[in-house]
Protein backbone atom coordinates (compact mmCIF):
# COMPACT_ATOMS: atom_id res chain seq x y z
CA UNK A 1 0.00 0.00 0.00
CA UNK A 2 2.81 2.40 0.95
CA UNK A 3 4.52 1.77 -2.33
CA UNK A 4 1.36 2.56 -4.18
CA UNK A 5 0.94 5.93 -2.42
CA UNK A 6 4.58 6.70 -3.11
CA UNK A 7 3.99 6.12 -6.77
CA UNK A 8 0.95 8.36 -6.72
CA UNK A 9 3.01 11.04 -5.03
CA UNK A 10 5.73 10.67 -7.61
CA UNK A 11 3.25 11.08 -10.42
CA UNK A 12 1.75 14.09 -8.66
CA UNK A 13 5.18 15.68 -8.29
CA UNK A 14 5.87 14.97 -11.97
CA UNK A 15 2.82 16.94 -13.01
CA UNK A 16 3.32 19.70 -10.45
CA UNK A 17 6.86 20.08 -11.75
CA UNK A 18 5.52 20.59 -15.25
CA UNK A 19 2.95 23.07 -13.96
CA UNK A 20 5.54 25.06 -12.00
CA UNK A 21 7.93 25.02 -14.91
CA UNK A 22 5.36 26.41 -17.30
CA UNK A 23 4.37 29.03 -14.73
CA UNK A 24 7.94 30.32 -14.38
CA UNK A 25 8.29 30.44 -18.15
CA UNK A 26 5.11 32.48 -18.46
CA UNK A 27 6.31 34.83 -15.70
CA UNK A 28 9.47 35.45 -17.70
CA UNK A 29 7.43 36.05 -20.82
CA UNK A 30 5.27 38.57 -19.01
CA UNK A 31 8.37 40.61 -18.16
CA UNK A 32 9.62 40.78 -21.73
CA UNK A 33 6.08 41.18 -23.02
CA UNK A 34 5.57 44.23 -20.84
CA UNK A 35 8.70 45.82 -22.27
CA UNK A 36 7.64 44.90 -25.77
CA UNK A 37 4.51 46.95 -25.38
CA UNK A 38 6.15 49.93 -23.71
CA UNK A 39 9.51 49.92 -25.46
CA UNK A 40 8.74 52.59 -28.00
CA UNK A 41 8.44 55.12 -25.22
CA UNK A 42 11.60 54.17 -23.41
CA UNK A 43 14.20 53.00 -25.86
CA UNK A 44 17.50 52.96 -24.02
CA UNK A 45 19.65 53.33 -27.08
CA UNK A 46 20.59 56.65 -28.62
CA UNK A 47 20.20 57.53 -32.26
CA UNK A 48 23.74 58.79 -32.22
CA UNK A 49 24.59 60.63 -35.40
CA UNK A 50 21.06 62.03 -35.54
CA UNK A 51 21.06 63.47 -32.06
CA UNK A 52 24.37 65.25 -32.43
CA UNK A 53 22.79 68.65 -32.01
CA UNK A 54 21.09 67.81 -28.75
CA UNK A 55 23.73 65.47 -27.37
CA UNK A 56 25.61 67.33 -24.70
CA UNK A 57 28.27 65.76 -22.56
CA UNK A 58 28.59 66.52 -18.86
CA UNK A 59 30.78 69.46 -17.88
CA UNK A 60 33.37 67.26 -16.27
CA UNK A 61 33.50 64.81 -19.16
CA UNK A 62 37.07 64.06 -20.15
CA UNK A 63 37.23 64.19 -23.90
CA UNK A 64 40.52 65.87 -24.67
CA UNK A 65 42.81 68.42 -23.11
CA UNK A 66 42.27 71.94 -24.40
CA UNK A 67 43.88 75.25 -23.65
CA UNK A 68 41.33 78.08 -23.55
CA UNK A 69 42.32 81.35 -25.13
CA UNK A 70 40.59 84.64 -24.49
CA UNK A 71 39.56 87.19 -27.11
CA UNK A 72 43.04 88.78 -27.14
CA UNK A 73 44.53 85.43 -28.08
CA UNK A 74 46.05 85.06 -24.63
CA UNK A 75 46.39 81.85 -22.66
CA UNK A 76 47.36 81.20 -19.10
CA UNK A 77 50.20 78.73 -19.55
CA UNK A 78 53.45 79.85 -18.00
CA UNK A 79 55.39 76.85 -19.24
CA UNK A 80 56.13 75.52 -15.76
CA UNK A 81 56.08 71.95 -17.11
CA UNK A 82 54.33 70.53 -14.05
CA UNK A 83 51.81 68.85 -16.31
CA UNK A 84 54.57 67.31 -18.36
CA UNK A 85 56.05 65.77 -15.22
CA UNK A 86 52.68 64.66 -13.88
CA UNK A 87 51.68 62.87 -17.07
CA UNK A 88 52.25 59.12 -16.80
CA UNK A 89 52.44 58.55 -20.54
CA UNK A 90 54.50 61.36 -21.97
CA UNK A 91 51.43 62.82 -23.60
CA UNK A 92 52.42 66.42 -23.09
CA UNK A 93 55.57 68.00 -24.47
CA UNK A 94 56.28 71.63 -23.81
CA UNK A 95 58.75 73.34 -26.07
CA UNK A 96 59.75 76.51 -24.30
CA UNK A 97 62.04 79.38 -24.71
CA UNK A 98 63.16 82.37 -22.70
CA UNK A 99 61.85 85.66 -23.90
CA UNK A 100 61.96 89.20 -22.65
CA UNK A 101 59.08 90.20 -20.47
CA UNK A 102 57.69 93.49 -21.73
CA UNK A 103 56.81 94.87 -18.32
CA UNK A 104 59.87 94.06 -16.30
CA UNK A 105 62.34 93.67 -19.10
CA UNK A 106 63.67 90.52 -17.48
CA UNK A 107 64.13 87.24 -19.25
CA UNK A 108 61.25 84.89 -18.55
CA UNK A 109 60.24 81.35 -19.46
CA UNK A 110 57.47 81.15 -22.03
CA UNK A 111 56.01 78.42 -24.13
CA UNK A 112 56.74 78.07 -27.77
CA UNK A 113 54.61 75.04 -28.42
CA UNK A 114 52.38 73.05 -26.08
CA UNK A 115 52.31 69.68 -27.85
CA UNK A 116 49.56 67.27 -26.84
CA UNK A 117 49.56 63.69 -28.13
CA UNK A 118 45.93 62.66 -27.87
CA UNK A 119 46.80 59.17 -29.09
CA UNK A 120 48.81 58.54 -25.93
CA UNK A 121 46.42 60.17 -23.46
CA UNK A 122 44.65 57.94 -20.95
CA UNK A 123 42.42 60.75 -19.69
CA UNK A 124 43.64 60.40 -16.12
CA UNK A 125 43.35 64.11 -15.45
CA UNK A 126 46.59 64.48 -13.49
CA UNK A 127 47.88 67.31 -15.72
CA UNK A 128 44.78 69.39 -15.18
CA UNK A 129 44.79 68.57 -11.48
CA UNK A 130 48.36 69.76 -11.10
CA UNK A 131 48.22 72.89 -13.27
CA UNK A 132 48.81 75.91 -11.00
CA UNK A 133 47.34 78.51 -13.36
CA UNK A 134 44.35 76.58 -14.77
CA UNK A 135 45.81 76.96 -18.23
CA UNK A 136 44.51 73.62 -19.51
CA UNK A 137 41.04 72.20 -19.15
CA UNK A 138 38.97 69.26 -20.26
CA UNK A 139 37.21 69.65 -23.56
CA UNK A 140 33.97 67.78 -24.10
CA UNK A 141 34.65 66.72 -27.68
CA UNK A 142 34.46 62.96 -27.94
CA UNK A 143 34.62 62.47 -31.70
CA UNK A 144 38.32 61.95 -31.89
CA UNK A 145 38.64 59.54 -34.77
CA UNK A 146 40.80 60.61 -37.68
CA UNK A 147 42.11 58.98 -40.80
CA UNK A 148 45.69 59.79 -39.96
CA UNK A 149 47.21 59.41 -36.56
CA UNK A 150 49.46 62.42 -36.98
CA UNK A 151 46.32 64.52 -36.66
CA UNK A 152 46.06 63.34 -33.08
CA UNK A 153 49.19 65.26 -32.20
CA UNK A 154 48.04 68.77 -31.52
CA UNK A 155 49.61 72.05 -30.61
CA UNK A 156 47.30 73.51 -28.00
CA UNK A 157 48.49 77.11 -27.94
CA UNK A 158 47.30 79.01 -30.95
CA UNK A 159 49.83 80.65 -33.26
CA UNK A 160 50.84 84.08 -32.10
CA UNK A 161 49.23 83.65 -28.72
CA UNK A 162 50.96 84.87 -25.61
CA UNK A 163 50.70 84.58 -21.88
CA UNK A 164 47.96 86.55 -20.25
CA UNK A 165 49.52 89.35 -18.23
CA UNK A 166 49.46 88.82 -14.51
CA UNK A 167 49.44 85.05 -14.52
CA UNK A 168 52.21 83.76 -12.30
CA UNK A 169 52.86 80.29 -11.03
Amino acid at each position, binding site marked *: MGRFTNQILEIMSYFSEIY*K*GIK*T*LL*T*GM*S*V*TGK*YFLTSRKGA*ITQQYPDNRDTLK*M*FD*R*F*RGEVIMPHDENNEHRCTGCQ*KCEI*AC*PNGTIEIIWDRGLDEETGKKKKKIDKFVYHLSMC*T*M*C*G*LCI*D*VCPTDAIK*WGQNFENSTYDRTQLTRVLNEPGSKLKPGVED
Partner: protein
Amino acid sequence: METPTVHSNFKSEEYFINMGPQHPATHGVLRLVLTIDGEIIKKVEPDLGYIHRSIEKMCERDSYQQIVHLTDRMDYLSANINNEAVCLGVENALQLEIPERVKVIRTIIGELTRISSHCLWWGVMGMDVGAITTYFYGFRDREMLNDIFEETCGARLTMNYNVPGGLMFDIHPNFVKRVKKFVAHFKTKIPEYDRLLTGNVIFQKRTKGVGVLSKEDAISFGASGPVARGSGYSCDVRKYHPYSALDKVTFNECLETEGDTFARYCVRIRELWESLSIVEQLIDNIPQGEHRVKTNAVIKLPKGEFYQKVETARGELGMYIISTGTKSPYRLKFRSPGFSNLSLLNHIAVGGKIGDLVATMATLDLVIPDIDR
Protein backbone atom coordinates in the same frame (compact mmCIF):
# COMPACT_ATOMS: atom_id res chain seq x y z
CA MET B 1 43.15 -0.86 -18.33
CA GLU B 2 40.15 -0.83 -20.54
CA THR B 3 40.46 -2.82 -23.70
CA PRO B 4 38.61 -1.61 -26.75
CA THR B 5 36.13 -4.26 -27.73
CA VAL B 6 34.49 -2.28 -30.49
CA HIS B 7 35.88 -1.89 -33.94
CA SER B 8 38.69 0.63 -34.02
CA ASN B 9 36.68 2.88 -36.34
CA PHE B 10 34.14 3.40 -33.59
CA LYS B 11 36.57 3.97 -30.75
CA SER B 12 35.87 7.24 -29.02
CA GLU B 13 38.76 9.60 -28.67
CA GLU B 14 39.44 12.68 -26.65
CA TYR B 15 40.12 15.76 -28.62
CA PHE B 16 41.36 19.26 -28.00
CA ILE B 17 39.43 22.37 -28.66
CA ASN B 18 40.54 25.94 -28.30
CA MET B 19 37.97 28.06 -26.53
CA GLY B 20 39.31 31.51 -27.17
CA PRO B 21 41.22 33.79 -27.36
CA GLN B 22 38.35 34.95 -29.54
CA HIS B 23 35.27 33.31 -28.15
CA PRO B 24 32.06 34.93 -26.97
CA ALA B 25 31.95 33.11 -23.65
CA THR B 26 35.43 33.97 -22.42
CA HIS B 27 34.59 37.69 -22.08
CA GLY B 28 37.92 38.81 -23.39
CA VAL B 29 41.12 37.35 -24.60
CA LEU B 30 41.30 34.29 -22.40
CA ARG B 31 42.23 31.05 -24.09
CA LEU B 32 41.00 27.81 -22.62
CA VAL B 33 42.47 24.61 -23.99
CA LEU B 34 39.74 22.07 -23.46
CA THR B 35 40.16 18.32 -23.60
CA ILE B 36 36.77 16.95 -24.51
CA ASP B 37 35.27 13.52 -24.91
CA GLY B 38 32.17 14.12 -26.97
CA GLU B 39 30.53 16.88 -24.97
CA ILE B 40 32.07 15.97 -21.62
CA ILE B 41 34.94 18.09 -20.45
CA LYS B 42 37.99 16.18 -19.28
CA LYS B 43 40.39 19.00 -18.68
CA VAL B 44 40.47 22.79 -18.80
CA GLU B 45 43.78 24.55 -19.16
CA PRO B 46 43.61 28.34 -19.07
CA ASP B 47 46.25 30.01 -21.20
CA LEU B 48 46.94 33.56 -20.18
CA GLY B 49 49.00 36.45 -21.38
CA TYR B 50 47.07 37.77 -24.34
CA ILE B 51 46.43 41.10 -22.67
CA HIS B 52 49.44 41.36 -20.40
CA ARG B 53 50.57 44.97 -20.18
CA SER B 54 53.09 44.67 -17.34
CA ILE B 55 51.19 47.04 -15.13
CA GLU B 56 53.18 45.97 -12.08
CA LYS B 57 56.42 46.84 -13.81
CA MET B 58 55.06 50.16 -14.99
CA CYS B 59 54.17 50.93 -11.39
CA GLU B 60 57.86 50.75 -10.48
CA ARG B 61 58.44 53.64 -12.86
CA ASP B 62 55.51 55.82 -11.91
CA SER B 63 54.87 58.12 -9.03
CA TYR B 64 52.17 57.18 -6.56
CA GLN B 65 49.67 59.56 -8.14
CA GLN B 66 50.30 57.99 -11.50
CA ILE B 67 49.87 54.41 -10.28
CA VAL B 68 46.23 55.08 -9.52
CA HIS B 69 45.21 55.46 -13.13
CA LEU B 70 46.86 52.18 -14.10
CA THR B 71 44.64 50.30 -11.67
CA ASP B 72 41.62 51.50 -13.65
CA ARG B 73 42.85 49.27 -16.41
CA MET B 74 43.07 46.10 -14.36
CA ASP B 75 39.58 45.23 -13.27
CA TYR B 76 37.87 47.87 -15.32
CA LEU B 77 34.44 47.00 -13.99
CA SER B 78 35.40 47.93 -10.44
CA ALA B 79 37.79 50.70 -11.40
CA ASN B 80 36.94 52.95 -8.52
CA ILE B 81 37.50 50.24 -5.91
CA ASN B 82 40.90 49.51 -7.40
CA ASN B 83 41.77 53.20 -7.18
CA GLU B 84 40.66 53.17 -3.59
CA ALA B 85 43.01 50.29 -2.81
CA VAL B 86 46.07 52.20 -3.98
CA CYS B 87 45.00 55.42 -2.33
CA LEU B 88 44.25 53.73 0.98
CA GLY B 89 47.57 51.94 0.87
CA VAL B 90 49.51 55.13 0.25
CA GLU B 91 47.52 57.09 2.81
CA ASN B 92 48.03 54.45 5.46
CA ALA B 93 51.73 54.36 4.74
CA LEU B 94 51.95 58.14 5.06
CA GLN B 95 49.59 58.03 8.07
CA LEU B 96 47.43 60.74 6.55
CA GLU B 97 44.20 61.68 8.28
CA ILE B 98 41.45 61.51 5.68
CA PRO B 99 38.32 63.67 6.08
CA GLU B 100 35.05 61.90 6.80
CA ARG B 101 33.49 63.34 3.68
CA VAL B 102 36.06 61.64 1.48
CA LYS B 103 35.53 58.31 3.22
CA VAL B 104 31.78 58.43 2.78
CA ILE B 105 31.96 59.45 -0.87
CA ARG B 106 34.51 56.75 -1.59
CA THR B 107 32.27 54.14 -0.03
CA ILE B 108 29.19 55.32 -1.92
CA ILE B 109 30.96 55.33 -5.25
CA GLY B 110 32.58 52.00 -4.44
CA GLU B 111 29.23 50.39 -3.76
CA LEU B 112 27.72 51.96 -6.87
CA THR B 113 30.64 50.52 -8.80
CA ARG B 114 29.85 47.12 -7.34
CA ILE B 115 26.23 47.43 -8.42
CA SER B 116 27.30 48.52 -11.87
CA SER B 117 29.65 45.58 -12.16
CA HIS B 118 27.01 43.14 -10.97
CA CYS B 119 24.49 44.61 -13.42
CA LEU B 120 26.82 43.90 -16.28
CA TRP B 121 27.56 40.47 -14.87
CA TRP B 122 23.86 39.68 -14.64
CA GLY B 123 23.28 40.66 -18.24
CA VAL B 124 26.24 38.65 -19.43
CA MET B 125 25.29 35.70 -17.28
CA GLY B 126 21.91 35.63 -18.96
CA MET B 127 23.53 35.91 -22.34
CA ASP B 128 25.92 33.06 -21.61
CA VAL B 129 23.06 30.74 -20.80
CA GLY B 130 21.23 31.95 -23.89
CA ALA B 131 18.83 34.68 -22.81
CA ILE B 132 20.14 37.62 -24.77
CA THR B 133 17.50 40.08 -23.60
CA THR B 134 18.93 40.17 -20.06
CA TYR B 135 21.98 41.89 -21.45
CA PHE B 136 20.00 44.95 -22.40
CA TYR B 137 18.08 45.10 -19.16
CA GLY B 138 21.34 44.91 -17.22
CA PHE B 139 22.84 47.64 -19.35
CA ARG B 140 19.82 49.88 -18.94
CA ASP B 141 20.40 50.07 -15.20
CA ARG B 142 24.14 50.27 -15.59
CA GLU B 143 23.69 53.21 -17.92
CA MET B 144 22.11 55.26 -15.13
CA LEU B 145 25.11 54.54 -12.92
CA ASN B 146 27.52 55.39 -15.68
CA ASP B 147 25.80 58.73 -16.08
CA ILE B 148 26.26 59.38 -12.38
CA PHE B 149 29.94 58.53 -12.64
CA GLU B 150 30.36 60.60 -15.73
CA GLU B 151 28.79 63.63 -14.15
CA THR B 152 30.86 63.43 -11.00
CA CYS B 153 34.11 61.80 -12.05
CA GLY B 154 34.26 62.76 -15.71
CA ALA B 155 34.52 59.26 -17.11
CA ARG B 156 32.22 56.30 -17.37
CA LEU B 157 34.61 53.44 -16.87
CA THR B 158 38.18 54.42 -16.10
CA MET B 159 37.36 57.06 -13.57
CA ASN B 160 40.60 57.82 -11.76
CA TYR B 161 38.58 59.80 -9.23
CA ASN B 162 40.65 58.98 -6.16
CA VAL B 163 44.01 60.51 -5.53
CA PRO B 164 46.25 59.83 -2.56
CA GLY B 165 44.85 62.22 0.01
CA GLY B 166 41.25 62.29 -1.09
CA LEU B 167 39.26 62.87 -4.22
CA MET B 168 40.30 64.69 -7.35
CA PHE B 169 37.31 67.01 -7.09
CA ASP B 170 34.18 67.33 -5.02
CA ILE B 171 30.98 65.53 -5.94
CA HIS B 172 28.74 67.17 -8.49
CA PRO B 173 25.74 69.06 -7.05
CA ASN B 174 23.40 66.64 -8.83
CA PHE B 175 25.09 63.58 -7.39
CA VAL B 176 22.85 62.98 -4.38
CA LYS B 177 19.69 63.57 -6.38
CA ARG B 178 20.72 61.22 -9.12
CA VAL B 179 21.83 58.47 -6.74
CA LYS B 180 18.51 58.62 -4.91
CA LYS B 181 16.70 58.39 -8.21
CA PHE B 182 18.76 55.40 -9.15
CA VAL B 183 18.15 53.62 -5.85
CA ALA B 184 14.42 54.07 -6.22
CA HIS B 185 14.56 52.87 -9.82
CA PHE B 186 16.76 49.89 -9.14
CA LYS B 187 14.64 48.66 -6.26
CA THR B 188 11.87 47.97 -8.74
CA LYS B 189 14.22 46.30 -11.18
CA ILE B 190 15.86 43.60 -9.05
CA PRO B 191 12.55 41.76 -8.54
CA GLU B 192 12.20 41.92 -12.29
CA TYR B 193 15.61 40.32 -12.68
CA ASP B 194 14.37 37.54 -10.45
CA ARG B 195 11.19 37.02 -12.40
CA LEU B 196 12.93 37.02 -15.74
CA LEU B 197 15.92 34.85 -14.98
CA THR B 198 16.29 33.60 -11.42
CA GLY B 199 12.93 31.91 -11.26
CA ASN B 200 13.07 30.55 -14.79
CA VAL B 201 12.94 26.77 -14.76
CA ILE B 202 15.41 26.41 -17.60
CA PHE B 203 17.87 28.70 -15.88
CA GLN B 204 17.60 26.78 -12.65
CA LYS B 205 18.12 23.49 -14.42
CA ARG B 206 21.13 24.93 -16.16
CA THR B 207 22.77 26.23 -12.99
CA LYS B 208 21.75 24.06 -10.04
CA GLY B 209 24.29 21.37 -9.23
CA VAL B 210 26.67 22.65 -11.89
CA GLY B 211 30.28 23.54 -11.11
CA VAL B 212 30.13 22.63 -7.45
CA LEU B 213 32.91 24.07 -5.32
CA SER B 214 33.23 22.88 -1.76
CA LYS B 215 34.14 25.21 1.07
CA GLU B 216 37.48 23.46 1.63
CA ASP B 217 38.41 23.80 -2.02
CA ALA B 218 37.35 27.42 -2.06
CA ILE B 219 39.76 28.10 0.78
CA SER B 220 42.61 26.04 -0.62
CA PHE B 221 42.36 27.58 -4.09
CA GLY B 222 42.36 31.04 -2.58
CA ALA B 223 38.94 31.93 -3.89
CA SER B 224 37.43 35.16 -2.70
CA GLY B 225 34.42 37.34 -3.27
CA PRO B 226 31.07 35.96 -4.37
CA VAL B 227 32.72 32.76 -5.63
CA ALA B 228 33.95 31.84 -2.16
CA ARG B 229 30.82 33.10 -0.44
CA GLY B 230 28.72 30.92 -2.71
CA SER B 231 30.51 27.98 -1.10
CA GLY B 232 29.84 29.22 2.40
CA TYR B 233 33.30 30.67 3.05
CA SER B 234 32.84 33.93 4.86
CA CYS B 235 35.54 36.18 3.49
CA ASP B 236 34.11 39.63 2.93
CA VAL B 237 36.95 42.14 3.37
CA ARG B 238 34.35 44.83 3.97
CA LYS B 239 33.22 42.92 7.04
CA TYR B 240 36.54 41.71 8.44
CA HIS B 241 38.80 44.63 7.58
CA PRO B 242 36.43 47.55 7.03
CA TYR B 243 37.98 50.45 5.18
CA SER B 244 36.71 53.96 4.40
CA ALA B 245 33.23 54.40 5.84
CA LEU B 246 32.27 50.75 5.81
CA ASP B 247 32.59 50.47 9.59
CA LYS B 248 29.75 52.95 9.97
CA VAL B 249 27.14 51.03 8.01
CA THR B 250 25.31 47.83 8.75
CA PHE B 251 25.08 45.19 6.09
CA ASN B 252 24.95 41.43 5.87
CA GLU B 253 27.50 39.25 4.27
CA CYS B 254 25.69 37.15 1.67
CA LEU B 255 26.47 33.49 2.14
CA GLU B 256 25.16 30.43 0.35
CA THR B 257 26.19 26.90 1.14
CA GLU B 258 25.58 24.88 -2.02
CA GLY B 259 28.66 26.10 -3.84
CA ASP B 260 27.16 25.54 -7.27
CA THR B 261 26.63 28.01 -10.05
CA PHE B 262 23.17 28.95 -8.80
CA ALA B 263 24.53 29.70 -5.31
CA ARG B 264 27.12 32.05 -6.75
CA TYR B 265 24.38 33.67 -8.81
CA CYS B 266 22.21 34.16 -5.72
CA VAL B 267 25.10 35.66 -3.76
CA ARG B 268 25.56 38.33 -6.38
CA ILE B 269 21.86 39.11 -6.61
CA ARG B 270 21.69 39.46 -2.84
CA GLU B 271 24.80 41.64 -2.88
CA LEU B 272 22.91 44.03 -5.12
CA TRP B 273 20.39 44.52 -2.32
CA GLU B 274 23.13 44.90 0.31
CA SER B 275 25.03 47.45 -1.76
CA LEU B 276 21.82 49.39 -2.30
CA SER B 277 21.21 49.44 1.44
CA ILE B 278 24.76 50.69 2.10
CA VAL B 279 24.27 53.49 -0.41
CA GLU B 280 20.94 54.37 1.16
CA GLN B 281 22.44 54.56 4.64
CA LEU B 282 25.18 56.92 3.54
CA ILE B 283 23.64 59.08 0.84
CA ASP B 284 21.53 61.23 3.16
CA ASN B 285 24.32 62.21 5.50
CA ILE B 286 27.44 62.97 3.58
CA PRO B 287 29.41 65.08 6.07
CA GLN B 288 30.57 68.53 5.03
CA GLY B 289 34.24 69.24 4.77
CA GLU B 290 37.25 69.11 2.58
CA HIS B 291 37.34 66.75 -0.34
CA ARG B 292 41.09 66.51 -0.31
CA VAL B 293 44.04 66.68 2.03
CA LYS B 294 47.03 68.52 0.74
CA THR B 295 49.90 66.16 0.07
CA ASN B 296 53.37 66.81 -1.21
CA ALA B 297 53.63 67.13 -4.93
CA VAL B 298 56.11 64.28 -4.84
CA ILE B 299 54.90 61.57 -2.50
CA LYS B 300 57.69 59.57 -0.91
CA LEU B 301 56.60 56.60 1.10
CA PRO B 302 58.64 55.68 4.16
CA LYS B 303 60.93 52.72 3.79
CA GLY B 304 59.10 49.46 4.39
CA GLU B 305 56.39 47.14 3.17
CA PHE B 306 52.71 47.98 3.04
CA TYR B 307 49.67 45.89 2.29
CA GLN B 308 46.15 47.06 1.64
CA LYS B 309 43.21 44.90 0.66
CA VAL B 310 39.77 45.86 -0.53
CA GLU B 311 36.73 43.98 -1.70
CA THR B 312 36.13 44.56 -5.37
CA ALA B 313 33.10 43.23 -7.18
CA ARG B 314 35.06 40.03 -7.85
CA GLY B 315 36.69 39.48 -4.51
CA GLU B 316 39.73 40.44 -2.55
CA LEU B 317 42.13 42.79 -4.29
CA GLY B 318 45.43 43.07 -2.45
CA MET B 319 48.08 45.67 -3.07
CA TYR B 320 51.53 45.06 -1.71
CA ILE B 321 54.12 47.82 -1.86
CA ILE B 322 57.79 47.53 -1.07
CA SER B 323 59.14 51.01 -0.72
CA THR B 324 62.75 52.07 -0.45
CA GLY B 325 61.81 55.63 0.36
CA THR B 326 61.91 56.93 -3.18
CA LYS B 327 59.13 58.54 -5.17
CA SER B 328 58.04 55.28 -6.78
CA PRO B 329 57.72 51.80 -5.29
CA TYR B 330 60.59 49.32 -5.47
CA ARG B 331 58.06 46.58 -6.21
CA LEU B 332 54.32 46.61 -6.34
CA LYS B 333 52.29 43.42 -6.44
CA PHE B 334 48.58 43.16 -7.02
CA ARG B 335 46.77 40.14 -5.74
CA SER B 336 43.91 40.03 -8.19
CA PRO B 337 40.74 38.12 -7.32
CA GLY B 338 40.17 36.92 -10.86
CA PHE B 339 43.44 35.05 -11.06
CA SER B 340 42.72 32.88 -8.03
CA ASN B 341 39.14 32.36 -9.10
CA LEU B 342 40.24 31.24 -12.54
CA SER B 343 42.65 28.72 -11.04
CA LEU B 344 39.76 26.64 -9.73
CA LEU B 345 37.99 26.45 -13.08
CA ASN B 346 39.63 23.15 -14.00
CA HIS B 347 38.64 21.75 -10.64
CA ILE B 348 34.94 22.50 -10.94
CA ALA B 349 34.31 22.26 -14.68
CA VAL B 350 35.67 18.75 -15.29
CA GLY B 351 32.91 16.23 -15.86
CA GLY B 352 30.42 18.82 -17.04
CA LYS B 353 29.26 19.60 -20.54
CA ILE B 354 30.40 22.52 -22.67
CA GLY B 355 27.26 24.39 -21.69
CA ASP B 356 28.09 23.84 -18.03
CA LEU B 357 31.56 25.26 -18.52
CA VAL B 358 30.10 28.41 -20.02
CA ALA B 359 27.61 28.82 -17.19
CA THR B 360 30.30 28.15 -14.58
CA MET B 361 32.66 30.63 -16.15
CA ALA B 362 29.92 33.23 -16.19
CA THR B 363 29.50 33.00 -12.42
CA LEU B 364 33.23 33.17 -11.82
CA ASP B 365 32.77 36.61 -13.40
CA LEU B 366 36.20 36.82 -14.95
CA VAL B 367 37.61 40.09 -16.17
CA ILE B 368 40.64 39.15 -18.22
CA PRO B 369 42.69 42.35 -17.82
CA ASP B 370 42.40 41.76 -14.09
CA ILE B 371 43.91 38.30 -14.50
CA ASP B 372 46.68 39.28 -16.86
CA ARG B 373 47.45 42.80 -15.61
